[in-house]
Structure formats: C-alpha cells, structure tokens
C-alpha cells in the first residue's frame, strides 16, 4: 500500500515537472498588409496541447476587426524533436492615424498564465509612395578602401503577400570583384522603418564586392521580378511560406522592380604601408607552428600555418619561411575553406614540408604578413615564429665513411632543347623490304611447313619396307655380307681359323641367298655360281673365280689345307665387290 502511494506521488511529481519543464511560448506577430494589419498570436510548445485552448484576446482598441480569429495548428520535427504550434490570426483595420497599441493576450494552461507581448505600431495612413513593394539595393558601406569587402544586399520592403521572386544578376563588374554569398532559399521577414514608415522587410540576395581600384564605382541597377497572389491565404507563418504552394488556380500577377544605381566612393589605402605589404585587406589572424622542434638529419618537419578571418581569401599570398642553411624547403600544400553565409570569411591552411639536411641548431624564420584592417582603419602585421629546431645527427652521417648529406637544391632550368644527334654510323642499314615480305623468308617458311608432310610420306614408305623382310634382305644383302667378311677377318687374325673360314663362306653364300631370295640351308656356293652363270647374270671369268674360291675354301675348311688360306678374306672381299657390281649394278 505504501509502495502504491509512493509510486502515485512520484508519477504526479513527474507529471507536474513535465508540465513545468514543457517549453511554452506565446507571442504576437504583427505584419502590415497594405492599409491593414495582420495580428497573429502564436503558441509554441514542445508537447501536444489540448485543441480547445483559447486565449483571452485584447480588445484591439483603435482597430476594427475585419476577420478572426482564424485558428491553425502545425507540427514540425527538427533533429528528432517535435514542436507544436497553435495560432489565432486577426485581420485588423486601423480606425485612425497615429500610434496604436495592441495589448497582450493571455492564455491559462497547466496552472500557469502565458502572456503575449504588447505591440505599438505607427499608422500614417496608406503608404506614402502608393506602393506595397519597394525593391532596394543596400551597401554595407559606400566609402570602402581598395580591397575592402562591401556587402551588397537586395531587400524587399513589402506590405502585401509575395508568392515568388527572382533577383536578376549584377550586369557589370568593372572595378571590383563580385563574390556571391550563400543563396537565401527561405527569406525571413522582419519589421523595419523605411521612408518614415514601418515595413515588413526581407533580404533576398547578398553579394560581396571587393573594389580593385580607387575612385567612383557605379553599380548598375538590378531588376527583380515578384509574383503577387490575388487570392491571399491566411494561415501562414511567413510571407514566403507559399513559394511552392501557390493558389491552385494560379491567380497571380507579376511585378518587375529595379533597384537604384549605387555609387561607391572607393578610397585609396592610407599611406605608411609596412614593408612587404602586398595589398591584403581584411581582418585576419595568423597561427603557425612546426610539428616538432627536435629531429634527426634527413627527417622532415611540417610547418602548419593557419590564416583565418574575413576578406578576399583568394588573394592571400603563400607564406613560406626563410630557413637556415641546414634546412631545405620542400613542397607547400594549401587548402582554402570559404564560408559565404552573410559575408566572405574562412580559413586557409598551409602545410609546408621542411627537410633537415644538417645537424645542429637550425632556424625556421618568422612568418610575416602585413594586412590593412578596414574596421580598425590601420595596418597590422600578422606574425608567427621564428622557431629554433634542434637537428640531431642522422643515421647515415653517423656511419663512418659515408658522405654527409649534402645541401641539395632543386635544379634550375633555363630552357629546354632537343637531344643531340646520334653518332653511330655502324648502325646504318640498307633500306629494304621487311624480312617477312621477302621471297626467301616466305619460301623457307613454306618449306619448313611442308617438311613434316614429306617426312610423314617417307616414314610411311619406310614402315612399309620394314614390314616386308624379303625386300629388306634383298636390300641389305651387300651390307650384311661386308659385315660378315669383317668378322671373318677378325676371327682369322685372332687365330680362330675354323670360325673365320665359316664366316667367309657365310658371307658370300648369304649374300647370294639374300639377293636371290633363297633359303640359305643347303645352298652351295659352287651350285649357285653355275646357276647364275647359266642365267647370264655372271660373266664366266667371275664365275670361274668364284668356283676357284669355293674350292679353296672347302679345302681349307674341311681338308685342313693351309695353302693360301691367308689370302682368302681379301679374295672374298674382292669377289663380293664384283658380285655386287654384277647383281646390283654397282661399281666394283
């Protein structure tokens, strides 16, 4: 029970706290609409409020209420936070000229009373100019010095609704640089006195001008085109909220207005400019520092330089320091960020790479930038540094025998010339057709391509021959006989008489058997000789000689006669030659 009471109390406290913490604002927005005024009471809250809320409105003394209150509500979400807006709008007609007061309205909610502010307006009757719109060009200053930023604003003073507009370009830029500022996509209205009266006013476009020469500069007139709806709607917070939600029937009219020509009297920069002044005008700050103050020879330092402020940042010079001999300046990279919101401001950051070449105490000289500050109307010198750098001996120079790191400098080019002629007469070659177009090359290539085909044919023939042993015997008979004769000679010389004589017989008889295609077994040399003689293949002298050889060989082999046997191999060789000549047509 006690817990329930505690939780209930806690919830109530939280609820009240929530109510108390809920941000609620109650305001009066007043805008002139021609000869009428629009009074809009706006209640803003970050939580949803009941729909039946109704403030206590003032009595609008001095005004006649033409219409109202027209109620409206809206929800908007910004960065995930919802905000609610409830409005009550009256259209009021002043009943007399002079100062008129609208008292505050009050609203009770959550045990609190919220009050809008009271407003006093001065009504002098219908607009003196007879116009509901004035398109005006306004200069931030009309007597700038050379290089000073001048803001040119295009403003619209209005007492009527505007559903769209277009501001034309500045047609001439003689004598100044013009930098457009950020585009105003949703102009905000406010109240301002103009020509002795209160007007609604909004800035439509802004341009930053930088005069480049002294004297009188004329800025040409700029034309603006405005679209005015015929059928106004009531429930709006800004006069420009309707830009993209026009009357569905497009009932509007266009009005073109031009600004007056503006004149700038550009003053020269005052005398006494400091040394090194290069014409930089603006409000700037300079910050710079090296990333380290101690390093080894051969290593690099980065000098970070930051210039920030207002002015023409594009004209800022590159700032590079003077260095002592042991330091070498390398590349400098810079980056400029320009903010164009309401004026030209921004920052330029530089990164300068410096390489330590020699050990010892080295110096990075001070950075110095003289500028003219137009707001203070004086010259200033922006300065950073100098810095002393301690350079320790590097790795390479610590090793004995190595050359110290030199004072290398960039190579200066004076110009460029073509390369010198080539002196190589031995490279001369006769101009001839390329090799691949020559006949010998093509013929060789064709021959090489055909060669495998020929080899294939030859191979097949060879295979065919090898497949016929009779033909092979016939073809190789002479070769085989010669081989046997050599073996016989060797055997005889080695004392193997019997074997040698057998081989002699084999040689001649084998030859004849192979040539004649006969079986060797049972073949007798004398018989074959007579047969060949009978066929007319052997001449009688050769036949006689063969018979004689056969007889002597038989005597030597079977009777053991040694008479003349040593001449037998040579005689057999001679006979083989003669036989081959007779049977194969060879020369003996």
């Amino acid at each position, binding site marked *: 029970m006690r817990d329930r009471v505690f939780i209930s109390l806690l919830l109530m406290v939280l609820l009240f706290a929530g109510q108390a913490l809920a941000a609620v604002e109650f305001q009066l927005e007043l805008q002139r609409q021609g000869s009428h005024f629009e009074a809009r009471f706006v209640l803003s809250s970050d939580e949803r409020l009941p729909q039946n809320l109704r403030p206590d409105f003032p009595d609008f003394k001095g005004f006649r209420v033409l219409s109202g209150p027209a109620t409206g509500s809206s929800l908007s979400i910004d960065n995930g936070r919802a905000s609610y807006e409830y409005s009550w709008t009256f259209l009021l007609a002043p009943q007399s000229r002079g100062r008129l007061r609208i008292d505050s309205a009050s609203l009770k909610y959550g045990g609190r009373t919220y009050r809008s502010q009271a407003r006093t307006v001065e009504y002098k009757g219908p607009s003196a100019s007879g116009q509901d719109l004035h398109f005006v060009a306004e200069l931030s200053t009309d007597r700038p010095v050379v290089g000073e930023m001048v803001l040119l604003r295009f403003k619209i003073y209005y007492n009527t609704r505007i559903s769209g507009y277009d501001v034309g370009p500045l047609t001439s830029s003689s004598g100044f640089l013009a930098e457009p500022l950020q585009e105003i996509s949703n102009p905000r209205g406010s109240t301002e006195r103009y020509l002795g009266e209160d007007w609604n006013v909004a800035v439509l476009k802004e341009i930053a001008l930088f005069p480049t020469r002294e004297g009188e500069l004329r800025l040409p007139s700029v034309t603006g085109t405005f679209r005015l709806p015929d059928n106004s709607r009531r429930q709006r917070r800004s006069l420009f909220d309707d830009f993209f939600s026009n009357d569905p029937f497009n009932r509007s009219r266009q009005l073109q207005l031009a600004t007056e020509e503006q004149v700038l009297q550009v003053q020269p920069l005052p005398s006494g400019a400091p040394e090194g002044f290069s014409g930089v005008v603006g409000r700037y700050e300079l910050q710079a520092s090296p990333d380290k103050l101690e390093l080894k020879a051969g290593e690099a330092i980065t000098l970070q330089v930051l210039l920030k402020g207002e002015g023409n940042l594009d004209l800022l010079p590159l700032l590079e320091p003077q260095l002592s001999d042991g330091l070498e300046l390398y590349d400098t990279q810079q980056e400029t960020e320009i903010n164009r919101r309401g004026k030209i401001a921004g920052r330029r950051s530089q990164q300068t790479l410096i390489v330590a070449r020699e050990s010892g105490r080295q110096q990075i000289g001070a950075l110095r930038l003289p500028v003219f500050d137009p707001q203070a109307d004086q010259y200033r010198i922006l300065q950073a540094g100098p810095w002393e750098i301690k350079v320790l001996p590097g790795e390479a120079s610590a090793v004995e025998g190595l050359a110290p790191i030199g004072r290398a400098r960039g190579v200066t080019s004076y110009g460029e010339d*073509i390369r010198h002629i*080539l002196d190589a007469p031995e490279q001369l070659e006769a*101009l001839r057709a390329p*090799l*691949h177009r020559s006949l010998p090359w093509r013929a060789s290539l064709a021959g090489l391509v055909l060669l495998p085909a*020929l*080899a294939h044919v030859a191979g097949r023939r060879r*295979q065919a021959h090898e497949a016929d042993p009779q033909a092979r015997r016939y073809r190789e008979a002479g070769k085989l006989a010669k081989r046997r004769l050599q073996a016989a000679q060797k055997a005889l010389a080695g004392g193997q008489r019997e074997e040698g004589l057998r081989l002699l017989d084999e040689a001649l008889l084998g030859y004849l058997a192979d040539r004649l295609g006969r079986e060797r077994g049972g073949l007798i040399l004398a018989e074959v000789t007579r047969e060949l003689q009978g066929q007319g293949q052997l001449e009688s002298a050769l036949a006689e000689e063969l018979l004689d050889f056969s007889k002597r060989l038989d005597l030597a082999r079977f009777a053991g006669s040694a008479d003349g046997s040593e001449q037998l191999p040579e005689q057999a060789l001679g006979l083989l030659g003669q036989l081959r000549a007779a049977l194969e047509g060879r020369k003996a």
Partner: protein
Amino acid sequence: MRTFFTGILLLLSVFRAIAAEDFEAGNQAYSAGDYDGAIAAWEGLVDEGYAGLELYYNLGNARFRQGELGEAVWWWKRAALHAPFDRDVRKNLEIAAGLQEDRLEPAPRLALWDALDRLLWSLPPNMLALGLLLAVALASLCLSLRLARLSFSSRPILLAGTWTGASLGLLLLLLLALQVRVREQNREAVIVAPQVTLLGAPLVDAEALFDLHEGTTLAVDRRSGEWLSLRLPDGREGWCPPGGAKVVEP
C-alpha cells in the same frame, strides 16, 4: 663461284665504309653548325637506300635547327617507326609538340594500352620474322623426325621440341601480324607546309574546312592521287593538297 661471292662481299664492305664516312661527315657538319651540309650528307645516304634510327633522327635534328618544324617532326616520326620507344626521339617529339600551333587533344587512352603497345613493339619486325622462322624450323624438324618413324622418333625431346617451336612460332606470328596490321591501320602524316587549309574534297576549289600548321601529325584516312585525306583526333576529316603533308614511311 667462291671468287664471285668474295667479290660481292668486298664490294659491300667498301660501300658500307663509304656510307659510314658520309654519315660521319654529316655529324661533323652538324656539330660545326653547318646544318645544310649535314642535311646534304645524310639525305644523300637516304637517297642511296640507307635507313635507320640514327640517320632519320639526325636528319630531324638538322631540320629542326633550320627552323623547319614540320620536316623535323616527319623525320623523327620515321625514326620512331624504327624504334618506337627510343628516349631521344620521344623527347624531341615532345619538344616539337610544345612548339606546334595546333593543339589537338589526343583521344583518352588507358595505361593498359600503352603497356600492350610496349610489348608489341619490344621487338622489331625483322627480328620477329627471323624468330618466327627459327621457331617454325624447330617445330618442323622435330615433327618431321617424329613422323619419319626412325629408331629415335619416339623420344620425348622431339615432342617437347615440336610443342615449344609451335607455341613460340604462334606467339611470334601473332605479334608480327599485329605489328603489320597496327602499322597499316595507323598510318600517319605530318604537316610540312607552314600552314595548310584542309578541304572538303580533293579538288582545288572545294570548300575549305579548317587550317593546320606545320608539325601537326594526323592519321591518314585514304589517298586520292597526291591528295591525302587526314583525320583529326576529334574525328574531323579533310583533304590536304599535294605538298602540304608527308606520309610517315619506315
């Protein structure tokens, strides 16, 4: 027969020695600032049928020194046909490009194509042709020995030789064919007249299209007699009258 060949060789070596002397004479004239003399010596060699990177390159230099930018570029371009990646030639052509009046933006090209170009032109055509012949010879001999059904025909080395020769031969044949095709398709001409107006047709009274100035190199589209149809990198084409441009030949 031997005497005949010896005589021919002797005669050739004599001619070669004379040519080398003329080349050297041109070099000396150039070094002495006598560019006319240098041109006469070197062009004499060209007329005699000599060619080569050094000869063409030197002629380009001499023409350049004479202030004839178009002729200089033409000779350097000829030298580049012999050695496409010679640093001297390329440097001189770069310098000439900086002096030319016509600024023609080359068509954008991938780095990959440059690398392939280098590969393609890394060997001169004659060397490719010779290599191709040797590769085919290797493949052909190995294959022939295999097909001849000899006792050693089945040895693996013959199979390896056949494949190696055939693969190498195919690669070299491809490179050679590409070189020939690229060279034939990318024929260039150099404007040698100080200024020349390209016309819409190869007729004297044809409509004038645009002007070009000496040293500008363009692609040759086609010919009609002595008229050349030239194509700019942006695709525009026009006919160049005789004498206005010279085609770059090897």
